[in-house]
């Protein structure tokens, strides 16, 4: 081999070894690299006991309720399979909405209610003008209605 080819082989080999090492390390750290866990994971006992963790999912439609003091809120986080109630005292981010993504950080109480110290909104990667969003909403509502009508007919 010419020295130049040797250097190429060395670099390619080095990068390959490095890549494999990275894959192994990332795999080992997998659970630590997750920003949040789902209510299903919490239900199956994957949540750390007596330690702060983050739970993520969707704010269930119609579940947001404000307590009498005006600053404490209660809502349900769902991943469509399981759900859990979250209690939070503080300011909610602008994008916090029913039916949208949310990540809450806090501890699971003995009563199964998650007491959050921080609530973050998770938004999707779709960007569109309000009219388009409205049209999409209408379309999906129409589809749901049609489905319902179909099933009634049957």
């Amino acid at each position, binding site marked *: 081999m010419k020295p*130049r080819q040797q*250097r*190429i082989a060395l*670099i390619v080999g*080095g*990068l390959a070894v*490095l*890549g494999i090492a*990275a894959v192994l390390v*990332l795999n080992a750290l*997998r659970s630590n*690299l*997750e*920003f*949040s*866990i789902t209510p299903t994971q919490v239900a199956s006992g994957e949540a750390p006991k007596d330690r702060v963790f983050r739970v*993520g999912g969707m704010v269930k439609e119609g579940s947001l309720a404000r307590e009498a003091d005006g600053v404490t809120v209660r809502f349900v986080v769902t991943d469509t399979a399981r759900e859990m109630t979250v209690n939070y005292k503080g*300011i*909610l*981010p*602008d*994008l*916090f909405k029913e039916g949208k993504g949310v*990540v809450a950080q806090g501890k699971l109480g003995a009563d199964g209610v998650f007491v959050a110290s*921080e*609530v*973050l*909104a*998770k*938004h*999707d*990667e*779709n*960007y*569109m*003008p*309000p009219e*388009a*969003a*409205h049209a999409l909403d209408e379309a999906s509502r129409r589809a749901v209605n049609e489905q319902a009508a179909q099933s009634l007919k049957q």
Partner: protein
Amino acid sequence: MSNGLLNWFKYASPQSFYPLAGKMIPWFWALAAIFGVVGLYIGFFVAPTDAQQGEGYRIIFLHVPAAWMSMFIYLVMAFWAAIGLIYKTRLSGMMATALAPTGAMFTFLALWTGAFWGKPMWGAWWVWDARLTSELILFFLYVGFIALQAAIDDPRRADKAGAILALVGVVNIPIIYFSVKWWNTLHQGASVSLTKAPSMAQTMLWGMLVCALAFWMYAIAVALMRVRGIILERERNTEWVRQELAR
């Protein structure tokens, strides 16, 4: 074929690249300015309000181009570093050195604009999710590259050490890019990718792409300026630099 190769090798020498770069710089500045004005005009005056984020989403026209450039410049830098290691061409190492500060600046801007976007929308300036953390690591890689090269006096050895660091750091780029797919992150997925149709309104997408082009042209212009300085510095004891500066 042989003719093309000859041309390449001709411009691979610092002496002939120096005047060529000087001629190219104004063109890249002009392109950067044109794309910048058009992109910002589309982004701030033509693109509609976003249904979810209102006017706050307009940070995207700076954030995404900066983030793209931060990763792309790193790849180009690592490419030149590898070429320098393999072929021992002097200019390649200088190119890598010239790109690093601009890459670091775009990484900083991606983090900064991201913080200013995350605070109102997510509710936090910063979170330690996989996307943000790996982008922060990219910033440290750039800074480490610059510091390492600055610490070594002999330019040849500095190039070599920098090249190895740059190549090791390449692992981080796919991690940044795919972090939103591989792990649960607070950061949303990609709006624009090669594998699916963009999930953005047409004018928004155009504004973002034109701004990205502007940043790209800017990066080339600044890197060429910087590489000219590096060439002069490193070739200061040659006759051609003497003649070049006597003019």
